């Protein structure tokens, strides 16, 4: 599975970072860094929670 970020939709609200700080980090300029776009099996549940928590609908977990 792969995390896809739509930078146009992201507004840096940080819900993903709250769910999965090992996968996401909001940067000083408000943009989002995906720290690991291919979460390991032990990270998958958190990745899913983070993607569905996005208020802007900017994150998707897709088959890869």
């Amino acid at each position, binding site marked *: 599975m792969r995390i896809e970020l739509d930078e146009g939709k992201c*507004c840096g*609200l*940080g819900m993903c970072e*709250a769910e999965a700080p090992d996968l996401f980090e909001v*940067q000083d300029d*408000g943009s989002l860094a995906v720290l690991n776009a291919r979460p390991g099996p032990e990270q998958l549940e958190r990745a899913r929670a983070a993607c569905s928590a996005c*208020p802007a609908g900017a994150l998707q977990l897709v088959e890869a």
Partner: protein
Amino acid sequence: MNDLVVVGASLAGLRAVEAARAAGFGGRITLIGAEPHLPYDRPPLSKQFLDEVAAGADEPSTVFHDEAHFVDELGVTLRLGEAATALDPAGRRVILGADTVPYDAVVIATGAHARTLPAGRGLAGVHALRTVDDAHSVRRAMDTAERVVVIGAGFIGSEVAASARKRGLPVTIVEALATPLVRAVGPELGLAIAQLHAKHGTDLRCGAGVERLLGEEKVTGVRLTDGTELPADLVVVGVGADPATGWLEGAGLTLDNGVVCDEYLCAAPGVYAAGDVARWHNPLFGRLQRLEHWTSAAGQGEAAARNALDPENAKPYLTVPYFWSDWYDSKIQFVGIPDADETRVVDGDVTADRRWIALYRQGDRIVGALAVNGQADIMKYRRLISERASWQDGLDLAERRRRSLAAKSAEAVGSATRS
């Protein structure tokens, strides 16, 4: 368990039906909504939704999904434009006027109604902002408005003011309390945030009561209790919202500033609540809370549906409250609770700097954090608060963040000098 009924078709209701299917529930789901619209997102309504629409361009929409998503993909029966009129917990049915819908479990997610001013009823040019219909009205009114008065300096009022300023309109905000945002972020920091208004040319008047609205059919101004008259052809009223519990009178539930629930969001056997209407016991802070925040509506909708469908394995819903607001070119974010023994600005200067961070202490625990343009910081504090971390942990994190930013800016200066 055959029938799940969700009353309220906004974010919490949407998340409830999605969570029910995600949990493998194969029974009937009915989603009842008083508004005729498909579930839509509310935060943009007081922000970019109010921007001018270019001639010929489509009107904005914040609808989450089309009808097919609900009917075909989720197998949900939609009853939109129909307000629930009563709940019969003993008979396990929701009453919709002359009709009834039976349930095995019900999730109440009817949200809140915007408060109005008695003086403003029936006067054209006076609007509340809660629903998408309200937002369309305010946006269109801004297209022709010449002077705007916003009543209430809360988040909705402040966002509307910022949107009007973006269009170049003169705006005055009238706030009854001496300091704005006291309930949301506390008195000192409410005042600090409110400086953004002055910086962007919005005239904020605190401690100003509204005596009456002027005008015969259309509003022409606002008269304050001190006799001041503010001319206006658009008045937006943002004086808070009350939980939509009127239809639950007599149902035997505890109604006290919302539907009172336990930590499982359960109000009575088979009856759960979520979103702005729910006042539940948040175990993280050991108190009843009613939140009007996007994130808790989403989380509670999901949790309430899961618990409603499988009460044996119900899980408590804990959260660190989080809200954000966009004013002018600034983002305001708050996590936690604002009632504190002490607040301390740990980064930046509230008067001079664009970016600053403040922390809230209760006893020796960090319970809240407020960031203005501190998006990289806020979730780090939220994590500490959710871990019930100490005040010192909060101060230590602030110190680490200050050092890291200082190092980065020194690096940037260094590389600029070299190049």
